């Protein structure tokens, strides 16, 4: 543990940095934002919380940082209950759009946060350099672009040199170049002992950054595992005409639950040894086969299946 951490952290958190049991949150008017969430995040992993808009990602992060209280269930974050001193000592968080005091410069905003945590001002210069914000640091935050505010938000979250870093949709509002830079930044931050929990609806982002993923839908965790585990191995890719007839034949042959259709291409969760018989069935039924190949299921395919999202995310 670094000297810095020793200043703010009286005790070392346990091996699992986040553990929730049956965590639920009901807002007024009976809106159930989260229902019975069981989540375990191990030390040192970069965990991606995936889900469509309104799935409960931000609610989960708010609960884990103590900004809101659960309606039922329990959570332990970095060895303490969410929002407790013991937990906050080890957690750096950026939940939703980072908010700063607009009349202060970026540097003074971080100096203010450093005072809250009894950290020396020299730590501010370190984190500003880490997120490449040294140059504009002395300008008032009110003049910052969205990307600069996002970077400052990450700098603020890093200030405590936390064991657990919580980032909510960190690339929101960034241009493509900013997203690439940010991705590299988070990869660097997530190296070593530090644990990162990030929420996103950008699948490519999660695929490239995260070591483990949880997919959340309507407030419940519907899948969890490494990217490979979530993808669930390979599948048979088929393009055929007419699509309706092909779909009927395929669903009868392997079961509707094993057939997906995206962008005019069927994906079949079947043993590759069945390829020849499936081709024969289609041709016999009068279907024109234009493409037949083994393919890897993308995270996007799995996400669509799990969350039932048909349109864009």
């Amino acid at each position, binding site marked *: 543990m670094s000297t810095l951490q020793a200043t*703010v952290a009286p005790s070392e958190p346990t091996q699992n940095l986040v553990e929730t049991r049956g965590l639920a949150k009901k807002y007024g008017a009976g809106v159930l934002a989260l229902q019975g969430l069981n989540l375990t995040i191990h030390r040192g992993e970069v965990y991606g919380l995936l889900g469509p808009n309104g799935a409960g990602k931000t609610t989960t992060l*708010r609960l884990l*940082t*103590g*900004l*809101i*209280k659960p309606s039922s269930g329990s959570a332990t974050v970095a060895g303490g209950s969410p*929002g*407790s*001193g013991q937990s*906050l*000592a080890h*957690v750096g*968080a950026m*939940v*939703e*759009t*980072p*908010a*700063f*005091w*607009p*009349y*202060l410069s970026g540097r*003074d905003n971080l*100096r*203010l*946060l450093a*005072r*809250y*945590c*009894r950290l020396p001002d020299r730590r501010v210069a370190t984190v500003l350099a880490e997120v490449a914000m040294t140059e504009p640091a002395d300008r008032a935050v009110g003049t910052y672009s969205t990307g600069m505010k996002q970077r400052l938000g990450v700098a*603020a979250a890093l200030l*405590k040199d936390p064991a657990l870093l919580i980032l909510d949709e960190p690339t929101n509002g960034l241009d493509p170049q900013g997203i690439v830079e940010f991705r590299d930044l988070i990869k660097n931050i997530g190296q070593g002992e530090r644990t990162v929990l990030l929420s996103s609806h950008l699948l490519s982002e999660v695929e490239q950054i995260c070591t483990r993923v949880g997919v959340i839908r309507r407030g419940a965790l519907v899948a969890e595992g490494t990217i490979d585990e979530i993808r669930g191995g390979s599948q048979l890719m088929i393009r055929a005409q007419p699509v309706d007839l092909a779909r009927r034949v395929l669903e009868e042959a392997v079961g509707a639950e094993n057939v997906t259709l995206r962008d005019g291409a069927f994906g079949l969760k079947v043993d590759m040894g069945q390829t020849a018989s499936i081709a024969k069935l289609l041709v016999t039924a009068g279907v024109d086969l234009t493409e037949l190949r083994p393919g890897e299921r993308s995270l996007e395919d799995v996400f669509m299946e799990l969350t039932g999202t048909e349109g864009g995310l």
Partner: protein
Amino acid sequence: MIIAAVRAEWFKLVRRRALWVTIGLMLVLAVGIEYLLVYVVATHPPARAAGAGVALAAAKNALYPASVIKKSVANVSSLIGIFALIVGVLAQGSEYSWGTVKTAWVQLPGRISIVVGQLTSLAILSLVMALALIAVDSLASFLIGTLDSQSSTWPSALDFLKGIGAAWLILYFLAVLGFGLATLFKQSAMAIGLGLAYVLVIENLVFSLLGNLGDPWNQIQQWFPISNAGYLQDSFGKVNSAVTVTIKSAAPASATHAVIVLGLWVIGIAVVSAGVVRVRDVN
């Protein structure tokens, strides 16, 4: 952790230009209306003020150094105090409108320590306001006294201390009231509107009407804050001034009573604010 929170809150407060502009306006108003305007009217009375010579002379007499403390304290709960209310509202209401409550509440000290830090910083700022008020009033009275060739007889050091203490307590109560309202409503506009209505109108109006019904209401009034601010001000002596806002105090209580009641109100509002902050969900 509380010391860390106080340092952070003070760091934030003193760098906010809007607060210093508010305090500056308070001082300009104090000198401009209570001294300059009264001096001009008393020195060059308009023709229609014929017959008001004695009152004007008394009002002018109150501008000299001997009366500086009672004159400074006289309007603290109304004309001057509204600026303390605004400062209190801004200190908390802006945190909600900017969303910085979330930024602050995920830092180390925790919510209650942050509230303690905010209220302590407001206490220090209220003291700065009280000192600045009495300093500029003293300067104004000195200049007017010199202009009129009046002897510079000043109140005793103890009177100055008491005056600063009373002004601080009233200003701090009003700042805490503003803070509490902003906490409750999670915004500034509603807190300022309701705060001003209460300080300037509601309590006085209610007890002006109820006071006519008899003694029990006068007893009840003795436990309300604006009335007690009035009692505390009156304990320094009444001021003859054309612009003094009179607090209706049908049954004046002692200065000690007023200090205790105002102190209890400060503690009460602080505890309620801390309680609200502790349990509140921030979305």
